[in-house]
């Protein structure tokens, strides 16, 4: 090995990322070459300076507690924790009984508020709306930000067990903003984000179940317009604060 090759591999060598053969070759070279061995020592010195400089920020105890509390809230059936150093066991005791109790209360509530209980579509419409609102609220509109359908589509590869259709509609006034992984009906789904002036449209896509009806349906939830349809074996939900006419126009374009 010559100095040039060492230059290219010295970091991988210092990080012990090389196989035995190359490692031995480099060791051999370093024992003979002052300049390369100095360069290697510099990497080691920097590494140990970084490791010994106390650069690791530990999560504050309050943050940890807050996260655990919001996880309980996220499960929404769990009771709110008291602000105390309650031992974990105590916590689990609460969960153990809290979930069934709250779950029963929830079912009772749903039965009471809806005559025959919510349909799948109804529940899904709520879930879709909630995800749309959350995507705008939590700075999580996109995981991959791109107006290029050839960037967004491959981004989903390996993240989902299906390939969502991705179209850019910039020419039609609905530029693609990007994509995001989301979660609906207990499964990961693709979310595509489009923009119309100041309005965002989330399109949620996942494989349709076998007997899904092909009729298009629209709904309004909390002031958001939703359109739902199935096509080519995929289920689509478009949701936005856009007016119904423009949202319909958008759906026609995406179909």
């Amino acid at each position, binding site marked *: 090995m010559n100095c040039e090759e060492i*230059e290219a591999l010295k*970091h*991988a060598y210092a*990080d012990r*990322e090389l196989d035995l053969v190359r490692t031995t070759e480099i060791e051999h070279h370093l024992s003979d070459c002052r*300049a*390369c061995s*100095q*360069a290697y*020592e*510099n*990497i080691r*010195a*920097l*590494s140990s*300076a*970084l*490791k010994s*400089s*106390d*650069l*690791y*920020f*530990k*999560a*504050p105890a309050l*943050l*940890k507690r*807050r*996260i*655990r509390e*919001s*996880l309980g809230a*996220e*499960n929404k*059936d*769990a009771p709110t924790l008291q602000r105390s150093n309650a031992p974990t066991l105590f916590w*689990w005791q609460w*969960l*153990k009984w809290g*979930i*069934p109790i709250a779950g029963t209360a929830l079912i009772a509530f749903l039965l009471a508020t809806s005559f025959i209980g919510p349909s799948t579509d109804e529940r899904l419409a709520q879930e879709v709306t909630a995800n749309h609102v959350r995507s705008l609220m*939590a*700075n*999580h*509109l*996109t*995981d991959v*930000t791109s107006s290029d359908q050839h960037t967004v589509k491959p981004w989903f590869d390996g993240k989902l067990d299906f390939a969502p259709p991705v179209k850019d509609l910039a020419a039609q006034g609905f530029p693609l903003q990007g994509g995001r*992984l989301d*979660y609906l009906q*207990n*499964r*990961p789904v693709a979310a595509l984000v489009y923009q119309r002036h100041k309005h965002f449209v989330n399109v949620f896509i996942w494989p349709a179940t076998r007997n899904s009806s092909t009729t298009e349906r629209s709904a309004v939830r909390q002031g958001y317009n939703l359109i739902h349809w199935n096509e080519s074996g995929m289920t689509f939900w478009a949701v936005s604060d856009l007016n119904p006419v423009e949202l319909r126009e958008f759906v026609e374009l995406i179909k």
Partner: protein
Amino acid sequence: MEEQDKQARFEATIMPHLDAAYNLARWLTRNEHDAEDVAQDAVLRAFKFFGGFHGGNSRSWLLSIVRNTAYTWLQKNRKHEIATVFSEEEHDVEDLAANPEVLLLRKADHEEIMRAVEQLPVEFREVIILRELEGMSYKEIAEMSDVPIGTVMSRLARARKQLQQSLGQRLESGVSQ
């Protein structure tokens, strides 16, 4: 019960990496308050997607969500930081191979090293944190940041060069004062 089981599994596999999550968020946002928001947001997101986690490296899995969350946050709040494109030449600093930096580096104190790392461009800072503080392998870093291993290697090389240079300069200017 399923939900209870999910929470118990989450507690056992993901929650032990809260420090790692916060540390990465802190270095990417360079601010305690924002780091708390990003870390909390990321963990809640991880909980939501936990059904899609089928074993494997739980720390990498959580950190990739922290990373995505932090970049989305930067995109929104400090767009200029990630909008910068780094050309090879622009950021290639003088090779210090022949300079005897070793002794100087040992004298660099906590504050100086901290500032030097904070001043790295975000992609370089990230790779330094993951490699030097988390001890992650090139392959783990590549997988969680969705780039080829070669890119991890070159970012790390350039990040280290830049650190060596800025620490060197700082120390020299410190000496001359």
